[in-house]
């Protein structure tokens, strides 16, 4: 039972560590207050993409290991169902609550009590901080999809904690 908490703590520390560098002013000459804000914004974007990149590599490895005993997937929807059931259960010990699609390459995965957010609040509090905690999971989904042969773009949105939606857009080459 403690296994789930281990990953949650590690994830919290990852986000905290990457954000610790934003509180202190950057070294070098600043072009006034606007320059500092711009640098802070780009710094935050870099941290988000670092988190996403970490999730991507983990997703690639999981995409190889988890489907090892399952039979080959026949179509895209099967892969998405695998993400919602097997991947989510393996990482978060619960299944995704709903999967919707427009049958044209866009899927919306909704989780009504996302384990990484559930300890923070249940309501509109801390809404601005939520994206940092979803970047790793977006990368995780993208990495697993890429190992299974699907190029995609994953974004996350939160209306009120702890419900969050992951939007997967398949890129057709």
């Amino acid at each position, binding site marked *: 039972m403690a296994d789930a908490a281990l990953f949650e703590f590690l994830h919290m520390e990852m986000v905290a560590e990457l954000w610790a560098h934003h509180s202190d002013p950057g070294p070098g000459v600043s072009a006034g207050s606007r320059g500092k804000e711009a640098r802070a914004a780009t710094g935050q974007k870099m941290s988000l993409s670092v988190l996403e990149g970490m999730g991507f*590599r983990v997703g*690639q490895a999981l995409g190889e290991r988890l*489907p*090892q005993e399952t*039979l*080959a*997937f026949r179509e895209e929807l099967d892969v998405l169902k695998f993400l919602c059931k097997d991947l989510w259960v393996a990482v978060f010990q619960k299944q995704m609550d709903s999967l919707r699609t427009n049958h044209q390459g866009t899927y919306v995965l909704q989780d009504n009590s996302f384990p990484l957010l559930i300890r923070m609040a249940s309501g509109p509090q801390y809404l601005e901080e939520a994206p940092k905690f979803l970047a790793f999971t977006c990368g995780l989904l993208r990495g697993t999809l890429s190992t299974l042969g699907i190029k995609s773009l994953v974004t996350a949105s939160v209306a009120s904690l702890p419900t969050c939606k992951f939007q997967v857009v398949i890129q057709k080459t």
Partner: protein
Amino acid sequence: MAVCVAVIAKENYPLYIRSAPTENELKFHYMVHTSLDVVDEKISAMGKALVDQRELYLGLLYPTEDYKVYGYVTNSKVKFVMVVDSSNTALRDNEIRSMFRKLHNSYTDVMCNPFYNPGDRIQSRAFDSMVTSMMIQVC
């Protein structure tokens, strides 16, 4: 006894290829290359079939007078091709299946290695020693 083992990436370039008799390596490389066509044929045939189950093990791809070629494809479209000596008739289907399962497990371990970038050639010594054990032991 497996005389040649190859791991082929999704984009059809080799990630790992090794043959036991070191002379005539080019002949095995060529055999593996031609077997890729048969693998693709089997994959597309399975996709069109209305069978619910799609197996990962592809079975005997094609026999020649000296060798038999077996194939296996993973969910991430990585293909394993194994060439065995035809003179070894004691080799049964489930032995080949277990060899492929070991290959799959070792490949998954390589993938989870943080020092490995997906898409590079496999240089892991653990993978090498597993393949060596497969080439010598089964005879």
